[in-house]
């Protein structure tokens, strides 16, 4: 039997809200702190410094090959903690749902969220649900906050970057952005899947190997290029990238040819960029390649003296060109 879709009453704070929490959220996300249903979750103290991050997820479409908004919300939050050198401790999640959303959709996303959280050994300890009238939202938005415990050896930040450092990436770039661009432009991405996934093991592997990354970041919106641009700006240096060293899947390259996009500015959701002192680059790559999520890790370039642009790209033909970060999301072009 078709179940009633999400109604405004499910966000009203009354009995319908409690029913939705009991029927959808508690069974999937089951943990004692959430089940207490207090106004706030009370957590045990953690040793050392805390890291805190917040993120809003408005991905459209919400379902895509390789993930959905639920998985993305958990991995996105945990990954922001991870590249700050923090192991996740707890997550909060607020749902803004559009009136008329099918129950099945919500349950699928929450189940996927629960699965992702288990994979990252973290719990969703508190949450909130609001419903907006039909037409005032795009099915579902998720807003999260993540708390993490900063680990020993956490990377300092872009100001520590030095000329001569090597730039590594943990796997092919642009998979997530390409999948989403395909779906938005009525293309079938075939077997291409979003790279949506956790990166904590990649960070942990570096720290466990005794490596001291100068800077770690998970390239999401804006892709690898935006991260390179930001670290160049923050360090006052430039990054030289060899185009033929960029790991780009053939499907992503094909989609970029079709839509006139540049893969380095397409979003990733499960990759890490690491800037390493050059003498540690090889060791860091070995540590990554031992992991399933790091098998295609590779060196893409190095930090150089400040050039007239944050990124200098070396073409496969030996030409060199300057590259800036675009102000807004690149749009498909026909010219």
């Amino acid at each position: 039997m078709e179940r009633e879709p999400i109604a405004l009453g499910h966000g009203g704070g009354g009995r319908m809200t409690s029913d939705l929490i009991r029927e959808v959220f508690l069974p999937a996300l089951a943990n004692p702190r959430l089940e207490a249903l207090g106004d706030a979750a009370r957590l045990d103290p953690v040793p050392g410094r805390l890291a805190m991050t917040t993120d809003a997820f408005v991905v459209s479409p919400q379902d895509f090959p390789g993930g959905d908004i639920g998985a993305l919300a958990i991995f996105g939050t945990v990954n922001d903690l991870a590249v700050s050198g923090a192991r996740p401790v707890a997550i909060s999640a607020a749902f803004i749902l559009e009136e008329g959303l099918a129950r099945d959709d919500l349950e699928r996303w929450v189940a996927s969220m629960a699965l992702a959280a288990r994979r990252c050994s973290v719990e969703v300890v508190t949450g909130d649900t609001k419903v907006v009238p039909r037409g005032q939202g795009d099915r579902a938005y998720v807003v999260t906050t993540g708390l993490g415990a900063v680990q020993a050896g956490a990377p300092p930040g872009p100001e520590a970057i030095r000329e001569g450092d090597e730039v590594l990436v943990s796997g092919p770039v642009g998979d997530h952005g390409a999948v989403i661009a395909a779906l938005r432009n009525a293309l079938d991405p075939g077997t291409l899947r979003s790279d949506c996934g956790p990166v904590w093991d990649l960070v942990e592997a570096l720290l466990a190997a005794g490596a001291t990354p100068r800077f770690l970041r998970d390239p999401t919106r804006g892709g690898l290029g935006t991260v390179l641009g930001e670290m160049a700006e923050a360090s006052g240096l430039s990054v030289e990238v060899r185009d033929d060293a960029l790991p780009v899947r053939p499907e992503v390259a094909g989609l970029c040819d079709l839509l006139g996009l540049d893969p380095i500015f397409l979003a990733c959701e499960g990759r890490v960029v690491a800037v390493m002192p050059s003498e540690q680059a090889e060791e860091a790559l070995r540590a990554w390649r031992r992991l399933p999520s790091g098998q295609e890790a590779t060196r893409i370039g190095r930090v150089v003296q400040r050039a007239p642009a944050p990124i200098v790209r070396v073409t496969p033909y030996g030409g060199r060109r300057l590259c800036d970060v675009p102000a807004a999301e690149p749009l498909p072009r026909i010219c």
Partner: protein
Amino acid sequence: MCLAVPMRLVRRDGPVGWAEVQGISREVRLDLVPEVRPGEWLIVHAGYAIEVLDEEEARESLEMALRASEDPGTVGGGP
């Protein structure tokens, strides 16, 4: 103005076809290439096939470039 890419026609249904390149596929309009058959390569611009690609010529032009770049003599040499 001419972002157009080669795509292989997978199937067709009247003026509408489904074409693929590098594992990415999409619907393409075939109004401007009425004779094309599945398996042939199209040049697709903004969702329309604007020509059927001549694979023979494609190979030949590659070979021509190859020959020339391996043997500078074929371009006439210098005086």
